[in-house]
């Protein structure tokens, strides 16, 4: 009896601190945000309960819908751009398909080590009307008024940002793949090659099955990161022009902290969480179905 109680006490003494920390920094903010999302509140003064009104308004809000579209585009460029490209680069470097692979490894890894704010400023200086790229094009074409009009296109203004995201984040996935590739014993590949297996077979039969769970983890990282995208876009365009490069997190930030619309801003943050959870569950289901885990 005493033993059981002591066991319970020691169990609680181990679990409770972590549980309290988890509840206070994870559960409480989400629950508080959820409660706020059902209200209209300026951050001070009376709180008005509005039920699900904020959520209903969200899906007819053109700015939120542009943000949602752009977040989906980031997911696509992450999952179908950054991860496959990261895998390709890692494989090429691991298999020494290029000379000075260590130098390439370092060069490719560099962008992820730079702060997103600096990356944004850097690319702004490339793309701006007085930036490097338009200046070169003006020199080459003789068109003195050339600017990158893609930034003013409702449909395509987000494309240059997707390119920068691809440039910046591919290296992270490359390093993760590379670290896992280094776990594959060379002898296994050599044995396969002695049996007559070509590069394609080695990749398909040996490398791909080993890297499948890594790709799954990378996908989760990519999806959750994509829905939370904030710093690069906030620094690069601030969501402009005319909201064309808006993403949900930037819109949530402006709504909540700049316009002091805490209820609506909280509703956006809850929707972001729901999207992340749904996308991760979907990824899990797909990978389970394909037996990749």
């Amino acid at each position, binding site marked *: 009896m005493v033993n059981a109680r002591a066991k319970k006490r020691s169990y609680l003494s181990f679990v409770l601190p972590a549980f309290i920390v988890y509840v206070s920094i994870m559960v409480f903010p989400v629950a508080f945000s959820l409660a706020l999302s059902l209200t209209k509140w300026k951050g001070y003064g009376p709180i008005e309960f509005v039920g699900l009104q904020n959520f209903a308004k969200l899906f007819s809000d053109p700015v939120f819908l542009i943000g949602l579209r752009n977040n989906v585009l980031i997911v696509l460029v992450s999952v179908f751009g950054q991860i496959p490209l990261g895998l390709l680069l890692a494989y090429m470097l691991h298999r020494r398909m290029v000379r000075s692979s260590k130098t390439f490894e370092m060069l490719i890894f560099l962008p992820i080590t730079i702060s997103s704010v600096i990356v944004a400023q850097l690319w702004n200086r490339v793309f701006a*009307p007085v930036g490097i790229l338009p200046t070169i094009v003006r020199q080459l074409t003789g068109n003195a008024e050339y600017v990158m009009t893609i930034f003013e296109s409702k449909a395509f203004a987000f494309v240059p940002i997707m390119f920068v995201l691809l440039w910046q984040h591919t290296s992270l996935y490359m390093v993760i793949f590379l670290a896992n590739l280094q776990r594959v014993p060379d002898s296994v590949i050599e044995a396969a090659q002695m049996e007559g297996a070509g590069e394609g077979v080695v990749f398909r039969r040996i490398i791909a099955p080993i890297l499948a769970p890594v790709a799954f983890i990378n996908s989760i990282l990519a999806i959750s990161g994509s829905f939370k995208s904030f710093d690069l876009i906030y620094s690069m365009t601030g969501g402009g022009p*005319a909201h064309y490069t808006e993403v949900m997190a930037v819109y949530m930030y402006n709504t909540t*902290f700049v316009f002091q619309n805490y209820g609506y801003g909280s509703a956006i943050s809850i929707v972001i969480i729901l999207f992340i959870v749904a996308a991760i569950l979907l990824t899990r289901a797909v990978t389970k179905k394909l037996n990749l885990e």
Partner: protein
Amino acid sequence: MRDHRIPRAAAVLACVLAGAALFAAPAAKPVTLSVYMQNDLANPQSAYWPVTVEAFQKKYPEIKLEFEYVSGEAYHQKFQAMAASGDIPDLFTCYAGARSGYILDRGMVKDLRPYLTESFKKSYNPAIWQPQGPKGEIYIISPNMAVCTVVYVNTKLQKQLGLSNPKTLDELVAQVPKIRAAGLEPLAFGNKAQWQAQSLLLSMLTDRMGGTAWFDQAMKGQAKFTDKPFVDAIAVIKKMVDTKLFPAGVNQLEGPQAWGMFVQGKAVYLLDAGWRVSALKGAATPEDYATYAAIAFPAVAGEKVHGSSAATLGEALAMNAKLKGDKADAAWKFLSFIYGQEGSEILMKYGTVPTYKLDYAKFDVDSLNKQYIALINSQSMGYVIDAKMDSEGVNNLLNPGIQAVMMGDKSPAQLAAEYEAWVAANDSNRKKK
């Protein structure tokens, strides 16, 4: 034998000193004030501030100031959290409008009217004593008027091209082919940050088309933003884009890139605010700077108010409503010093025209500043929209909407209708009874 003369002399001296101390004026009691200020000391435009504080400390050494500087949006975010906890500093940066609603609406800012004697008020531009609260409260002594529309001219380029100051917008548009043929930009202007087209252009155009009386009515709902003055004002901006007055990609161009273009001699005119004078002075060579001129935005077809600009009160430090006794006295000494004659003279020396009336002849005012002072003294001032209307409607709808109009994705009437719908449903001005 011991000599008693020295102790006796010491005792006499001590008595004399004690007596002197009793009858002397009591030393001022030290007071410490906490100051939370929106300021970026790394910005060259803030160079006047450390000099002002040093001058104050020299005059009032008994008042100790503990500063916390935060710039940009972060200032408001942190201050909102402070306001929510009910614990705000003794002095803090405050705006005379909706931007500081989170402290003004809570009654956390001291009404300065008990301190403002008629003789004190006479020393300032009367425009700053317009009521700042619902009962006529005055919360800040604004040190400068933020004049939002000034056209700067590079007279050297203008002469080289054989051009003269345009009297009307059509005359300015007519200069475009000649300027572009010379490989120059007609009117440097950057609107990447979105607020510029509204604060620096639409506000002035709205005043030209409708005047402040119409705007007052629109705020109350007695007129609508779908009315002709507002729609026409937006249409003028679209016309300016279509006639290639602005640089290509104006909505991708940042403010400093635009005025940098002007300083580099790549644009004949610059559309910017009055506060750009000191930046131009710092960036241009003295020879180039001497060729700059400041003129009013040219007349627009259909305008009702002629030659006006738009202006709002610049932000200033305000007092915590809870301050009493010595602390309140010390805070008032600080405010009346920095915004009074001493502080204003320092501000003037650093290139900003203060609201405090100074004898400009005492200062070595350069030619651009002289022209600027003469210009704003000759102009009537309309409202700056974002100083009057709620931030969400302006920043989330109107500013991006102007960009959409400029890029041809929205019509002026469509934007006006969208903005009116938002204002009618949400803006606090329409909810006031």
